[in-house]
Each structure stands twice: as structure tokens, then as C-alpha cells.
């Protein structure tokens, strides 16, 4: 017979809320459900209970007992996230897990005893489950038995972990009151009328007679009373996304307070991703706005990441760029999980970048500079020198052996100016003379127009030009024109005449003249 463990979170709605606001764990807190005068206490922390706060009290009654009582409303998104976290804790121990409803999770323990080779493996397992759950700020009680009912009833007892020995389920349940079986009200009333108050008394009744008198509900309840499960364990299918969020006590208008609250939620989200060896490739943010608005954002990450700081920076930049436009009343983060990048590192070749570190670095740079400023350069079709394309940075694996260093080419490169720098160029018709005097050495395909051989360069003053390099002076040597025609088939055709010039004061530049406008620009510095 399979052994099962039940993880039970006492006062689940309150525990879920305190998981989101860990600072309140030692405070007197009461959780309310309902609005206005109809609001009633549904859970209270230990300190609040010690002061006399009980479920069902109204807010004025609770405040009368404890004026400094911290009050929170029930938050379904917190509870959903806490339930997911509880399931993930169970999944980190066993592959077969069942979602038992609010604050209850069952897990099959077959084969796990090998991981706890002590005198009492189940006891050690129970302690390990409690410890792991406490780390995730979710206090649990653990019950272990051979049936789900017995395990759940054992988990609801305060002496955690409670172990019910195999085959002892019926005797364990026997002295407990009938309401532990969660019977239908009608059935319970009938049984009490018969004078049956404990599970054991009910289990001792003949099976056929119970079925004959109470019908199918009574028969099922009888089987439960005998320690038998009505259904086998129903395996839990993990969701495609990880969600964390909370409703805010009051609407937030400023960004910083929102990020302060969001950091805690993101931290929990990253912790959950890390516990399953996953990272987030896309992060969605849902903001509930006052009074009834909804704002949805989707942030694509350059590579899967689970670093809180990086994700928070991305959210900050996104919200700074496009503010939601109304106070935020609740938020939810939705992480789309993906496997972190993996790579086999070489023992002999050059060291490769760690994929995980690279993903984090790229995400940080994206957050800092924006996605259009980080990437791998890629040659683009065409002839314009200022053209450039950025693609995703995915470096290939390094070679298995370090190659011998090559001799450098010592190539003179051009520092491209983007956008080209407008210039005023004084030209002189002096080339005609040299052309006539050296007709033999003139290349046959060179078509020099004597009217615009550059002689002097002046910078054009424009708005913001103080941030751009200034080029001016008398030209010592001019070489050109070198013709460039590109995209002649489109409306944005380019026809330029390029010149390499050396200024008398020093400096080597590449200029061009737009043929159709006659304007001059510098688009590069030989450097």
C-alpha cells in the first residue's frame, strides 16, 4: 500500500497573506472578509488570538479589543501564489503530487525512504518538509498515513509531523468526531439521531445496511470512515506560467513604493523558478488600476533569467517609459518559464562565457541601455558606410583547442560618424590644371568635376552640435571623388562623391557630397 503525506497550512488565507508581507509575521494581524459593516474576521495571528480576536468578529469589535491591530483583507492572488508555492515544495520531494484544495497538498512517498536512511525515515521526511516550507515562509503541518483522509486528519493535528503506522488508519480515525469526515449535513444529522458520534462507531456499522439506509453518500462516507480512499492520487499538472502578486492596501501612485512591494513578489517568483531549475524568458505584468482599469505589460528578456534585481530594473524602465496613468490597486507578475542556457565548457580551449551569467549580463544591459543598444554587429547589404545592424548576441562555442595567435593586419580603420556631420566646404577649380598637365597618369574611369574640389572645411553650427566633433581647417591633400550610388531603385536613392582629405593642422577625414543637393558631410575619421 502506498504511503502518502499531507501538507496542511493552518489558517491558509492568513498564512498566504503573511507570506507576501513577511514583516507582519510577528505582529497582531487579523484577516477580514467582506466589505464595510459585513466584514468579519476569518483568521488571526497568534498575538491577535492571544488578545482575544476570534473568527466572526466585526472590525469594531476587534479594534475594541486591540486598538493597534493590523488589519488586512483576504487576497485571492496571494492565496493562489501560496498554493502554487506549496505544490512546488511537494514537487521538490516527490514526482506524484495532488492539489487538495486551499492549503492542502498530498504527495506519494514511495521510494523516498531511501533518501532518509535513519531509524524513522518518515519522521525525518516530515521534518525536512516542514523545514523547506518554513524557508518559503509558509508554515505547514505534516501528516503521513496510507490514506489521504488519515493523512489529512493527521496533518490537522498540532503535533507535526504526525505518523499513522501502516494498517492503523481505521484505529487512528476511530476516536475522532464524525465532522472530521466532512459529511453532508443531512447525513450527519441522521447519524447523530442514531446516536453515532465518532468515526469508529460509524465504521463498525455493516456496510450493506449503511448503503441501504443512507444511499451513495452514506456508503462513500462509510468507506472513508474505514480508512479507505475513494479516489487514487490525482497527479497535479504544473501550470505553464508562474504567478505572484497581491492586492494593495491602498492605491499606489508613485513608482518607488510600487517597486518596493514588487521586489518582494519578484523575489518569491525567482525563488520558485530556481527551485525548479527554471528561469523566466518573458515576464508579464498585470496592474489593476483605480477605479476599474487594467494595464497589461509584457517584457521579453534577451535570455532566460531569474535574477530579481535585473527583472526589477526592467519593470522600472518599462513603467518609467509608459506610466500606467492611474493609481495601482493590485498587481500580478506572470513568468513564462524556460530552461536556462547551458553549455559544455572546454578543458583545453579558451574559456567560454557561462550561459547563466551571460543571460543575466545581457538582461542588465538591456535594462540599463535599452534593447536597441546591445547586441552583436552584423554586416548589412548595401554600400553606405554608416549602415549597421544589431542582432541577438549568441556567441558560438569556443574552439576545443586554443588556436595559435595570428599576425595582425595593421589595417587603418575609419571611425564612422553617425549621423554624418554636416560641413561647409569651400571648393576651388584647381583640379582642371593638374588634370591637363597629367593626362597620361589620369585613370580613364575618373570623372573629376573641377567645380567642387574641396579646399577648406568649416563646421556647420547646428542645435546640439557642442556634443559632436568639430572639423575645420585648410585642406592639405584631397583625394577623390570616389563615386557611390546605392538604392537607386528606391525613392531614397543615394548618390555621393567621396573624398579623403588631410587637413593642414593634422587629421584625416572622409567627406562626401550629396550629388542632388550639393551638401557636404563628414562620415568618418581615419583613426
Amino acid at each position, binding site marked *: 500500500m502506498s504511503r502518502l503525506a499531507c501538507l496542511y497550512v493552518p489558517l491558509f488565507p492568513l498564512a498566504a497573506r503573511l507570506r507576501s508581507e513577511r514583516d507582519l509575521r510577528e505582529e497582531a494581524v487579523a484577516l477580514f472578509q467582506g466589505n464595510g459593516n459585513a466584514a468579519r474576521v476569518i483568521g488571526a495571528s497568534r498575538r491577535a488570538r492571544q488578545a482575544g480576536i476570534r473568527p466572526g468578529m466585526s472590525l469594531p469589535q476587534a479594534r475594541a479589543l486591540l486598538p493597534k491591530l493590523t488589519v488586512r483583507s483576504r487576497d485571492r492572488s496571494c492565496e493562489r501564489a501560496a498554493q502554487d508555492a506549496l505544490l512546488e515544495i511537494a514537487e521538490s520531494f516527490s514526482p506524484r503530487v495532488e492539489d487538495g484544495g486551499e492549503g492542502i497538498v498530498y504527495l506519494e512517498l514511495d521510494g523516498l525512504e531511501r533518501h532518509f536512511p535513519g531509524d524513522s525515515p518518515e519522521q525525518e521526511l516530515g521534518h525536512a518538509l516542514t523545514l523547506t516550507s518554513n524557508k518559503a515562509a509558509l508554515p505547514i503541518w505534516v501528516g503521513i498515513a496510507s490514506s489521504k483522509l488519515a493523512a489529512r486528519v493527521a496533518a490537522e493535528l498540532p503535533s507535526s509531523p504526525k505518523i499513522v503506522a501502516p494498517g492503523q488508519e481505521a484505529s487512528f480515525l476511530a476516536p475522532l468526531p464524525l465532522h472530521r469526515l466532512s459529511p453532508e449535513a443531512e447525513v450527519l444529522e441522521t447519524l447523530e439521531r442514531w446516536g453515532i458520534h465518532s468515526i469508529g462507531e460509524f465504521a463498525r456499522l455493516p456496510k450493506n445496511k449503511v448503503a441501504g439506509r443512507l444511499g451513495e453518500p452514506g456508503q462513500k462516507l462509510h468507506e472513508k470512515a474505514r480508512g479507505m480512499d475513494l479516489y487514487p492520487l490525482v497527479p497535479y499538472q504544473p501550470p505553464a506560467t508562474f504567478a505572484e502578486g497581491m492586492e494593495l492596501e491602498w492605491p499606489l501612485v508613485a513608482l518607488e513604493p510600487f517597486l518596493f512591494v514588487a521586489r518582494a513578489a519578484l523575489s518569491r517568483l525567482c525563488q520558485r523558478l530556481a527551485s525548479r531549475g527554471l528561469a523566466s524568458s518573458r515576464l508579464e505584468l498585470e496592474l489593476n488600476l483605480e477605479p476599474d482599469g487594467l494595464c497589461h505589460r509584457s517584457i521579453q528578456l534577451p535570455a532566460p533569467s531569474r535574477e530579481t534585481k535585473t527583472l526589477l530594473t526592467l519593470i522600472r524602465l518599462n513603467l518609467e517609459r509608459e506610466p500606467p496613468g492611474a493609481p495601482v490597486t493590485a498587481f500580478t507578475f506572470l513568468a513564462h518559464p524556460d530552461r536556462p542556457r547551458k553549455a559544455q565548457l572546454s578543458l583545453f580551449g*579558451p574559456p567560454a562565457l557561462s550561459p547563466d551569467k551571460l543571460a543575466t*549580463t545581457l538582461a542588465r544591459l538591456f535594462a540599463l541601455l535599452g534593447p536597441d543598444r*546591445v547586441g552583436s554587429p552584423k554586416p548589412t547589404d548595401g554600400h553606405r558606410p554608416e549602415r549597421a545592424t544589431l542582432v541577438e548576441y549568441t556567441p558560438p562555442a569556443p574552439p576545443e583547442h586554443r588556436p595559435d595567435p595570428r599576425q595582425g593586419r595593421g*589595417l587603418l580603420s*575609419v*571611425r564612422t560618424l553617425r549621423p554624418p556631420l554636416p560641413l561647409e566646404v569651400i571648393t576651388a577649380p584647381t583640379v582642371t590644371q593638374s588634370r591637363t598637365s597629367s593626362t597620361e597618369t589620369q585613370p580613364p574611369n575618373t570623372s573629376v568635376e573641377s567645380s567642387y574640389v574641396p579646399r577648406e572645411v568649416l563646421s556647420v553650427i547646428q542645435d546640439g552640435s557642442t556634443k559632436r566633433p568639430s572639423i575645420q581647417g585648410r585642406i592639405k591633400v584631397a583625394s577623390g571623388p570616389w563615386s557611390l550610388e546605392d538604392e537607386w531603385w528606391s525613392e531614397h536613392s543615394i548618390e555621393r562623391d567621396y573624398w579623403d582629405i588631410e587637413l593642414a593642422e593634422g587629421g584625416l577625414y572622409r567627406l562626401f557630397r550629396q550629388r542632388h543637393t550639393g551638401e557636404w558631410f563628414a562620415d568618418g*575619421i581615419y583613426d
Partner: protein
Amino acid sequence: MPNALLSSLPSDLQQYLKSARELTRQYTPPSTSTVLFPTTIDSLDDLLTGGLYRGQMIELIGYRSSGRFSTVLSLLAATTMAGEAAALIDLGNNLDPQQAALSGVDLQRLLWIRPQRLKDVLASAEALLAGGFPLVVIDLGTPPVPGGRGGEASWLRLARAALSHEAIVFVSSPYRVSGTAATGVVKATQGRPRWTNRRQTPRLLTGLTSKLSLEKLRGQCGGRSSTLHLTTHEALTFGMAT
């Protein structure tokens, strides 16, 4: 007075207390790695005793047409062709991918970052070092550099990060920016262009010659210099390099 205070303490406690001067004398800075990283530019390698060492921050300063950008591309080419990743922080947005490929840079291994402020340059460099990049090249473009020189503390922190991550930070700047943080400083003078013969019309640019001089290198004497010869792609292709 400090001596009087010191002598008033128990003797077993006295031996643990030291003045700032004594601590400075005893402090031996962590040595840079011995892993050599040749730049494949002979003139620069000669000045830097063979090349760059991991953990160093080297600054190359020079005005326009001094061969600074060509040196940066040669360094990136040497690194990426050896199969290592490299990052170029290009403040002036001056990189032409086609030309970088001609210089021998393996573009797939190059991360190109185009910040707009010096503050972002420094933050990006720190992030890249933490990310494990073995070579981070910072090119500050042409003057005026947006953001001035940056705080010296930031450059010191960057130099420390390079040391702790055993990476190389190569700063190419029109003027000194890193203060005392750099392990070595090389200055490039404005280059002298080389043209084809006057009789040939039009005259063709064949290259640039500039002078590199070592201004500072920890543990070495400065003042040495060498000549940097750079040749245009056209001159190399058509055999006009000389």
C-alpha cells in the same frame, strides 16, 4: 600621543594594532595574472612587454587620426579570432561592422554596446566584467566625451573589478580619464598620413604612421616609444603598402 595610547593597552593587544603607514608598508597588492594576451600590434606589444596581462586596465590616449580606433579593432580581432568573447563599449557609436570584419573581428563573438553617457559606459563595463567577459574595450570616441572624465573612484572600481575577474579593460580615450587607476597608459600622437606619389592623380591614401609612447606601466620605466604603421585595406589589396 598615539604611542602613549598604544602603550597603555595590554601587550597582547598591542601587537594587533598598527598605524596606517605600517599597514601600507605591509600591504602587497594582488599581482596581475601571468596569462599574456598579445594584441598582435607589434609596436604596442613591445611597449607593454609582450602584450596585455589579465587583470590589467590599459589606457590608450590619442587625438584624432592617431590610430587609436584601428588599435581597438586589432585587439578585438586578436581576441575573437582566438575563440574568446569580447565586448566593445562604443560611446561614439563609431563601429562599422563591415570594416570590423575586414580587420579580422569575429562579429559573432563581439558584443557591441552603444551607451550615450559616460556613466552608462562605466556601469556597462562593470556588468560585463561580472558577466565573465575576458576583454572589455571602452572606446570613448572623439572629443567632446559626453560626461567628461567620470569620477576617479569609478575608474578605480573598474580596475579592481578587472583584477578580481582576471579580465582586461582596454580604454581608448582622446585624453586621460582613468587617473591613477590604469595599470598602463600609452599615448599615440596624431598620425602622419601616407599617400601615393604626387604624380599619380588622384593620390591614394595608403596608410598612417603614428608614434606610440609609454607614459606609465606599473613596475616598468616609462618614456619608451615605438612607431605604429597602419595600412588601408585598398593599399594592402593592391600591393601599395610600402
